[in-house]
Structures are given as C-alpha cells and as structure tokens.
C-alpha cells in the first residue's frame, strides 16, 4: 500500500483518555493529532470530580506545582440521607496531604485544558472545533477520520470520544446503548470565596473534601456528590436512566427535590449558582464494556465504558487517564511492529489487562448487578438514619441497650432474608 499518512496516530477527543494518549505518544516522538469537537478541551465535559494524584503524576511529574487542579482531597465524607435526617461518615486522612497527593478535585474546562497544553508542549497537534463524523475506511480497516470535507489519514486511530460513543458504534466496537447501563448526572457549580470555603468546611488552604450521598432520590440507583474546588463547589446527582424513566419521574424534578434536603441546603448555603451542566455515565461495568480494539483502532475511557460503579462512588476519569496512557504506549509498540490489523492492535488489550483499570473493573464486576437492588438506595439510608435518631432521641425514659434497640429496630423494618441476601451480595460484589 502506498498510502500517504498525515499523522501516525489520530486521537478523537481531548478529555482525560485522549489527552493522556496524545501526551504519551508525543513524548515518544510519534506524530499525533488530537481532534476535539469543543471550543477548547473541557468545553463539553462534566465530572464530579476527583482524580488520583499518583496517576496524574505519572503523566505530568510534579503536577501539583502547577495550576491544573482545584484542591488536595484529604477528607472523604459519605452521607446517608432520608427525610430530614442524615448520617455521615467522615474519613479524614491527613497523610494524604503530601505530594503526590492521594486525590485532587478538578473542574474539567480547567484540567482538560491544562493537560492538553502539556500534550501540545510535548509535540502533539491539537485541532479544536472539529467534529469527527466518520472514519476513513479501506475495506474493514480504519485509516483515519473524516470531519466535514476534511480528511486526516493515519495508521492508527484512538477513539476517546466520551460517553456518547457514536463513533465507537460506527467502528463496530460497541452496540447501541441500553438505559439500564447508563446514568445521567445533573450538576450545578456554585461560587464561594476560597476563604469562606475553608472556614465553613474546616479546611486548610488548598485542602478539600468530597462528599458522596446515598438516599433521598426517590429510590433511584445513583447518588449525590459534592466537591470543594478553589473558589467553587461542585454539586450534583446521578440517576440510573432505566429506573428514572420506569418511575416516570423527571430528572430535573428529582434533582430539585434532592436539593431541598437540609443537609444539602447547608452545604450550598449562600453560594451562588454559576453553571448548570449534565452528562451521561456508562455504568454497566466490566460486562458491558465495548470491544477495545479493531482494525486500525483502539478505544479508551468512557467511550469504552471504563467506569466503575461501586455504589458509594462512580469512577471514570482515573480509568480514562490510565487507559489513555496505556493506549498511547500500546500505539507506540504497534507502530514499531507495523501490524495495524486487529491481530496487531490486540497489544492494547493485553497491556490494559495488567493495569488497575481492567483489574478493578473485573474485581467489582458484580457490583453493577448488586446495586440494582432498590433497597440499597432507599431502605438502608432510611433504616440507618432512623436508627440513629432512635438511639439519640431524648425521650425522658430509661434507655435500652444499644444492640437490643438496633436489632429490634432493624428486624421490625427489614425482611431477614433480604438482609442476608444483600449482605452476601454486598460481600461478593464489593
């Protein structure tokens, strides 16, 4: 074949997966173009969001000396919510407050732009406002991309288009999505001066916390999230699309109702809403990931369904960063070996299998099914918050022993068989 290639590798999407791939390839001296449909990297992107420090550090050593992130996360709170009640577990780990930092909060227009700049500095070319509509096909081999009248030819294409995965389907690697395997996240960003954030939530300078919330969302699997950024707050609610539509409830109404909870009202009190956003999340887990490679093509991140839903948190961005990096490393090897058929591109899957991305998704493969139980999202938050109220309420009467009160309270409200089933399910899945 005497094809003239414009680049060795074309990457679709300048989110964490695509940009990590571009950065890795550019560092390896490969001619790579990163194509982004947004006005800038991050313009179309929404996340909770926290990233693992060590993962960023591998891509950009000493990243914390720069401006890409929001706050170092040292505190993780998990709240169970029910009508007028909340029980919160507060895990405070000050060991996380040193480089490379365990986790950092991010906002995507800032983080994605920062990371893309790193890729650009390393030699990657970035094309903005560029929507990929199809691939360049030669038989069943993908040889680049088409955008309007423009064609970019390349030996390899990496799809990192995010959750909508239109091109992953077009490449024949994913099936049409099913609502049970997806959630919609509704998010509001609030403005609050950094010193107010620090004094209100008891944080030091640049320190932050995350707060996941379960319950009080009409029993729809998913949950709330809250993150402190430098001078903004990220707050949102994730709702499984199948359960939401089956209940005939509007996502916007469930979100507004969720927001009326006193615990949440207190979190966002006096803060000014400055942006509203939404995104879908593939949460089908290990069993519903796309095929990861094909003739001339690799897929990474949300587009491939690399999202872990472990109930108390939904994890996608870290997987995207790591999978993008691995896709970049695999692409370097594939280019060296010169076999761009699926026999050659399989190197990517083999490499990914050794990473935490694949291993974690596999470890938690039963979680998606377990979390399908409505009990997790209504019964248990109600039960635990109700029990705490019963234990703490001052009635003026003598108290019973705590264990006796607890067991009596739970058994009166829960079927013992469901409890055992959930205990086993929980044990097996998480």
């Amino acid at each position, binding site marked *: 074949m005497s094809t003239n290639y414009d680049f060795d590798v074309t990457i679709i999407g300048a989110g964490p997966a695509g940009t990590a791939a571009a950065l890795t390839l550019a560092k390896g001296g490969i001619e790579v173009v990163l194509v982004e*449909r*947004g*006005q800038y990297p*991050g*313009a*179309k*992107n*929404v*996340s909770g969001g926290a990233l693992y420090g060590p993962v960023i550090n591998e891509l950009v050593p000493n990243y914390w000396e720069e401006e890409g992130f929001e706050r170092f996360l040292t505190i993780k709170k998990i709240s169970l919510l029910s009508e007028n009640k909340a029980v919160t577990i507060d895990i405070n780990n000050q060991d996380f407050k040193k480089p490379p930092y365990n986790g950092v909060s991010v*906002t*995507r*227009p800032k983080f994605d732009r920062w990371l893309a700049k790193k890729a650009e500095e390393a030699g990657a070319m970035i094309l*903005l*406002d*560029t*929507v990929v*509509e199809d691939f360049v096909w030669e038989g069943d081999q993908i040889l680049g991309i088409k*955008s309007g009248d423009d064609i970019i030819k390349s030996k390899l294409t990496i799809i990192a288009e995010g*959750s*909508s995965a*239109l091109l992953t389907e077009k490449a024949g690697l994913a099936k049409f*999505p*099913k*609502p049970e395997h*997806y959630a*919609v996240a*509704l*998010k*509001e*960003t609030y403005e609050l001066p950094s010193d107010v954030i620090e004094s209100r939530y008891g944080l030091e300078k640049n320190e932050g916390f995350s707060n996941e919330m379960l319950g009080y969302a009409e029993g729809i699997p998913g949950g709330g999230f809250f993150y402190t950024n430098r001078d*903004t707050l*990220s707050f949102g609610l994730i709702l499984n*699309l199948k359960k*939401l*539509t089956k209940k*005939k*409830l*509007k*996502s*916007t109404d469930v*979100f*507004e109702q969720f927001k*009326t909870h006193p615990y949440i*009202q207190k979190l966002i*009190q*006096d803060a000014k*809403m*400055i*942006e*509203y*956003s*939404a*995104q*879908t999340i593939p949460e089908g887990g290990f069993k519903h990931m796309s095929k990861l490679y094909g003739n001339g093509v690799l897929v990474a991140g949300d587009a491939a369904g690399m999202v872990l839903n472990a109930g108390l948190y939904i994890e996608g961005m870290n997987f995207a960063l790591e999978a993008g990096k691995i896709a970049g490393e695999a692409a370097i090897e594939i280019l060296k070996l010169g076999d761009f058929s699926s026999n050659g591109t399989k190197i990517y899957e083999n490499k990914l299998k050794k990473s935490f991305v694949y291993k974690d998704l596999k470890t938690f493969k039963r979680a998606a099914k377990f979390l399908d139980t409505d009990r997790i999202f209504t019964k248990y938050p109600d039960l635990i918050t109700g029990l705490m109220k019963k234990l703490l309420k001052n009635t003026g009467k003598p108290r019973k022993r705590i264990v006796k009160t607890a067991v009596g309270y739970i058994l009166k409200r829960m079927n013992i068989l469901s409890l055992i089933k959930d205990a086993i399910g929980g044990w097996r899945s998480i």
Partner: protein
Amino acid sequence: MSKTEKVMTIDEKLSLTKLTTDKNYEHITINPEICKKCKTFDCVYACPANCYKFAEGEEVDSPIIFDYAPCLECGSCRIVCPHGSVDWHYPKGGFGVEYKMS
C-alpha cells in the same frame, strides 16, 4: 425554605450555561411518526434540559414538543428512547454547549 433558597427554574439555570445555537443545523431530530404512537415518553423524564416537553391541547400532531436549542449534549434521550425515534449527532464545531466551570 427561606427566601435565599428560591428554587430556580430549568430555564433560569440554563441561562447560566453558555449555549450557542446553530440555526442551520439541528443536531438532534425526532421522528414525529414514531413519537405519535409513543406511550412511554422516556425522553421527557430523562432530559436534564427539558428539551422534550408534553404538547398541550387536543389538536396536536405529536405528543412531544422538541427543541434542540437548550441541549447540554448529554445523550440521555438517544439512550432512553425505546422506539429509536431520536437521531442524535454531535453539534457542528463552534456550536452547542461551552462549559466554563463544570
């Protein structure tokens, strides 16, 4: 709720987000022939931007009124529609949502 916690409407919330509408290209189209027979209306429930609304009045062609302009490009409608009525594309370059702080 106290006066400071006034509930914002979706339209008010959407006005905070930068959206550039492409007047020459509807990136999502629905098939009215299919929507006419719909009994589930999953798009109305799922859409976080209220792009899909119930049509009011007796003499309507379709039970759903659709407007692509407020779309946040989340893709929910395409996923939830059990009838395959939603033809979903990415907006053209330079159009659609442009997040600053999300």
